[in-house]
Every structure is written in structure tokens, then in C-alpha cells.
């Protein structure tokens, strides 16, 4: 009997804890959805469950004459996609070279990457700012993309190398016996086998620029070049509270696709991180 009561107490306490956790997690998200449906503009008048909900703020965002939101959306997509493509290509190359070849400078190269992945590349923000200014890359998307790609290389190279190390070397050796060249082995044997890790690297290097704020904020000056993060921040900070409901609508629109993308690829994220983490 005591066993049974103990079990009931344990489960009830567990459910209670989980209920509280769920409320704390959900509340801010529901609140912002509620705010976005408020008819008013300001933070002060908005309630979580408006009496006369309206979609006018969503409409307003798509009105390209009044709002740059669509532009920001496209900018963010463009920057993230291009970053992803370049990052995947260069990471596949570097990861493969570090995993399969023994060359002079390999050990130091790996060490350099390990240390670089620890220092966020925006730590050198003064330098990035001055250099971009000097080279005329300030306020251009190209400059921002270059920085993002460079920032993605060290960590993802480690992930890639960790994964490639698990693919047996006998495979490439037998291919080499059959007369396959370096590029052929890389392209036709190793790459098809490393699809899972390529997916992980692609996801990481897409999400990172999308969620970045500081570099975009330093690099981008004109409003029509802003990314989502900088744009939304400007929207709130310009006159805090006065355009809050518009901001809320913008947040909801950006959060929904990312959340869906994220939830559907969640497993890869975790497997990719643990694979790279325990290996390196």
C-alpha cells in the first residue's frame, strides 16, 4: 500500500512541476501572440486576450510602403542561405583534409581552430568595424556574409572532422587501389556517406546568421539593408512601446517558420552536437 501512495505522490508532484514549467515556457509566447492581435499601437494598452482581435498589424507589415519588414525578411533569408552554402563547401573541404590527410601543419591547424572556436568572432568587433570601413564593405551584405562564413568554419570543421573520422579509411584506400583520384574519392565516396553531418553543418550555419544580432548591427547602416534582428530591434528601441504591437506581429511571423524548421530538425542538432562534442 505505501508503495502505491508513494507512487501517487511522486507522480502528482511531477505533474505539478511540469505544469508550472509549461506555463512559464508558454506564457511569454502566448502573450506576444495576444499583443500582436491588439487593435492599439502601444505596449501600455495591450492585453493578452484582446476583446476585438485584429490582424491589421500583420497587414501593415506587408505594406511595403510603410514598413521594411518584407525587405528585412528577404535580407535575412538571403544572407543565411548564402552563408550556409559557402560554409558547407569550405567546411566539407577543411574537415575532409584534416580527417584524411597527414600533412605538415595539421596539428597546429586543428589547435588553431579549437582556440578560434572559443573566441566569438565579434570579440574583435573594433577591428571588423574599422576593416570593413577601410575596405568599403561596411553596410554591404557581402561583407557580412564573409564574416559569418569565416566565423562558422572553426567549430563546424571540428564537427565535420569528428564525423568523417568514423567512416572507415579502408573505403578510400580500396578506391585508391582502383585508381580513383583525390577529388573522386572525396566527391563520390566520402560525401554521399556524410550526408547527416552535412545536414547538421548546413542547419547550424543557417541558424547562426539568422539569430545573430551584434555583427549585423555593427555592419549594416541603412534601414533597407537590415536583417530581421536589427530591424525588429530598431522597431522597438526607436520609441519603446509605441509600435509594440507591430513589433509583436513581426516577432510572431519570424518565430513561427524558424520554430517549425527547428522542431523538425531537432534530432540532428542534438546528435550533431554530441558527436562533435565527445569527439573533440
Amino acid at each position, binding site marked *: 500500500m505505501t508503495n502505491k501512495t508513494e507512487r501517487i505522490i511522486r507522480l502528482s508532484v511531477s505533474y505539478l*512541476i*511540469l505544469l508550472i514549467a509549461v506555463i512559464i*515556457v*508558454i506564457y*511569454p*509566447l502566448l*502573450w*506576444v501572440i495576444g499583443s500582436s492581435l491588439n487593435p492599439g499601437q502601444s*505596449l501600455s494598452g495591450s492585453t*493578452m486576450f484582446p476583446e476585438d482581435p485584429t490582424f491589421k498589424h500583420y497587414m501593415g507589415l506587408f505594406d511595403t510602403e510603410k514598413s521594411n519588414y518584407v525587405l528585412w525578411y528577404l535580407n535575412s533569408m538571403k544572407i543565411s542561405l548564402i552563408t550556409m552554402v559557402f560554409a558547407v563547401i*569550405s567546411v566539407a*573541404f*577543411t574537415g575532409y*583534409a*584534416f580527417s584524411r590527410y597527414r600533412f605538415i601543419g*595539421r*596539428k597546429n*591547424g*586543428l*589547435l588553431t581552430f*579549437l582556440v*578560434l572556436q*572559443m*573566441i*566569438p568572432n*565579434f*570579440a*574583435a*568587433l*573594433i*577591428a*571588423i568595424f*574599422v*576593416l570593413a570601413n*577601410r575596405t568599403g564593405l561596411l553596410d554591404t551584405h557581402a561583407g557580412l556574409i564573409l564574416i559569418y562564413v*569565416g*566565423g562558422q*568554419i*572553426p567549430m563546424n570543421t571540428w564537427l565535420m572532422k569528428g564525423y568523417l573520422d568514423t567512416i572507415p579509411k579502408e573505403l578510400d584506400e580500396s578506391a585508391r587501389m582502383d585508381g580513383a583520384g*583525390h577529388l573522386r574519392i572525396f566527391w563520390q565516396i566520402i560525401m554521399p556517406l556524410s550526408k547527416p553531418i552535412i545536414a547538421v553543418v548546413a542547419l547550424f550555419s543557417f541558424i547562426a546568421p539568422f*539569430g545573430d*544580432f*551584434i555583427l549585423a548591427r555593427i555592419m549594416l547602416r541603412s534601414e533597407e539593408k537590415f536583417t530581421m*534582428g536589427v530591424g*525588429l*530591434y530598431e522597431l522597438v528601441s526607436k520609441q519603446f512601446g509605441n509600435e509594440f504591437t507591430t*513589433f*509583436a506581429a513581426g*516577432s510572431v511571423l519570424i*518565430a513561427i517558420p*524558424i*520554430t517549425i524548421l527547428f*522542431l523538425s530538425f*531537432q534530432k540532428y*542538432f542534438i546528435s550533431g*552536437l*554530441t558527436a562533435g*562534442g*565527445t569527439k*573533440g
Partner: protein
Amino acid sequence: MNSNVTTKHRKNAGLLSIIPGFGQFYNKQFVKGIIFLVLTVAFFSSFSQTLNWGFWGLITLGEIPILDHSIFLLIDGIIALLVAIIGLGIYAFNIYDAFNNGKKRDEGFLLNSVREQYHNLLDNGFPYLMISPGFLLLIFVVIFPIIFVILLSFTNYDLYHSPPAKLVDWVGIQNYIDIFKLDLWRSTFFGVLGWTIVWTFGATTLQVAIGVFLAVVINQKDLKGKAFFRTILILPWAVPAFVSILIFSGMFNESFGVVNTQILSMLGIDAIPWMTEEVWTRLALILIQSWLGFPFIFAMTTGVLQSIPEELYEAANVDGASLFQKFRGITLPMVLYATAPILITQYTFNFNNFNVIFLFNGGGPAIPGQNAGGTDILISWIYQLTMTSGQYGKAAAITMLLSLIVVAVALWQFKRTNSFKEEDMM
């Protein structure tokens, strides 16, 4: 095979290659020698101007205001430095190659023919070819900025010494001395450093604890609705962080935010000055970061828990272990062991977590007698010094101090990670 007693090819070839290419000529590898010689001539004829100008600029940082732009000279100087390093690298390789081939001759081996050299180059060069695009990019967007910051921290570059109207000068370690000697800078630096450490350990430990705890609670065998709870609890990770932080910044607004107007008033608590009083802003930040960060730990722990063999718990049950004992003796060690490397990256992440600090309250509230805000961590203070007060030299020095801490932690972790000790890994 005994010829190594009589010949001294390695020494001769090595010495001769002080003039690039001649060592190779001595080894009768004429094509290679000519390539080295041509490379050297080309290097000097195309870069001598760059090098001359660059090193002059690097040493003087310009002599005439308006005409000489110190910062541009500094950049050109770094380029010259990199070019010189690459040149020296090729030069060293030339000597190494001549010496090595001389050694081969001493030992009586035949040297490779041109065709073999070409194939060798292709084989050995392939990995370099593969890493070069990534590495070049790294040099320009990561390594170049780092060198720049290092050099900048030894200059007096600030609003009063701002080119082109004024020149920037080398000041040695004056910036570092100022940070530790001048009262305003010293108190600010240690204040910010203290909070950065409290923040890093407080926020990270809390998010780890919550994540592990919830994962363990959900993982109970007889608990229903696992999938539902797991999906909901992962949401804060899925929503882009900058969006959530801005939302929280609205919720914690002192006069209009829901936290004060609804939640606390419902509980009968007076409005709390979340944005204007240091202590409360700090508390809010730690709570918010826990909200943002726990799902990641939660998801990872869930993965680990599912891989713990059931027999361990059964054996513990036989021994009559309590719930808590099982948690402490089995679950926690297993989880910590599997996730330790990632936990450390969580700490370094929060150490530099600019977004949450800056987007929530801009590092504020302002503190009298300090030139950083009450919740500024090192990285956001650097941002402020650079972007708003133009204290570039000081900001660079602080960046150096910050990097020192991060690199120390990185190397410490590197030493602990066993996989590096495997012969083949490195």
C-alpha cells in the same frame, strides 16, 4: 650506401639555398630551382613597395596629420606583416627542401625526377589545396582582426586621437596600466569583471540545473504525455533568441509590462523596478537566460538518459536505494560524464552572451562613477566603448584581457579532453 661519410650534400645544399633556388641547382633539380628563383624575384619586385610602405607605416603610424591616416597605415602594415610571413615561410621551405634532398643524396638515395616531383606535389599539395579557401577566409575575417586588435591595444586611438585630423601613436602598455591604475577604469573593470563571472556561473549553472532536473522528471517510466511535455519545453530553444529577449524586455517594462501590472499585482506584490535598479535587472537577466538556455541542456540530457542501461536502476532497487540516491549515484554522474564538454562551452557562451545583455536593457541601468552600465558584461562594455564612446585603444586592451581568459579556459579544456591524446587524432 656508405657515401654519407664522404659527401656533405646536405650542408652544401642548405647553405647554397640561402639564395633561393641555388640549393636545388646544386641537387641538380633545375626545374624546381628555377621555380624558387622566379618566385623570389617576383616576390621582391611586386611586394617591395608594399613591404617598405607597410613597415614604415607600422613603425611610425604616420608623421603628418590629415595626409597620413594612422589607422589605414596600421592596416597596410598588417598586410605587409602577413606578406612577409608568407614570404619567410616559402624561404624556409626552400632551405628545408634543399637540405632534405641533400640528405637523401648523402644517404645514397636517388632524387625524384621532374615527373615524380609533379606527382608528389599533387599528392602532398592536395590537403593544402582543400583547406586553403577556408583558411584564407579565416585569415582575413578572424586572424587579421585579431592581429589588429592586439596592435590597437598598444595605441592611444580614441576620440581625441582620431584620424585623419590627428595622428595615432604607439603608447606601449599605457592602456593596460590605465585600466589597472586609474580609479575610474579600475573600479569599472573589476566591477564589470565581477558581474561577468557571477553572471556566467549563476545563469549557466541555473540553466543546467533546470534542464537536467526537468529531463529527469519527464523521463520517469510511468509518466504520461512525454512527447507533449518534451515538445513544449523545447520551444524556448526553437524561437530565435533575439525575438524572445525583446519580448521579455517588453514584459519587464516597469510601468506597462505584464510582469508588474498583471503577475505581481495578482500576487499582491508592489511593482519592481526591473529596468532601473541594478539588482533587479541582474535578477531578471539570470531568470531570462535560464528560460532561454535550459531547453538545450534538457534535450541533451534526455538523450543521455535514454541510453543509461535499465539494469543499473534495477540493481539499485534491489539494494533498496531511494530515489535521491539513485539520482546522485547513477543518473547525475552518467549525465555529467556524457555532457561535460558541452557544458563547458555553455559557460564560455554565456561569458560572451552579448545578445541577452544588450537587447534586454542595453547593459543598463547607468551607474554613477562608472563608465559601464550596471549589467554590462565585458563583451557588451567593449561594444559600448567602441560604438558609443570611441575609446578604441582601451576597448582593444579589454578585448585582449577577455581573450586571455577565454583562451586559458579553452586550453584547459583541451588538455582535459582525452581524445586528443590518441595518436591518430592529431
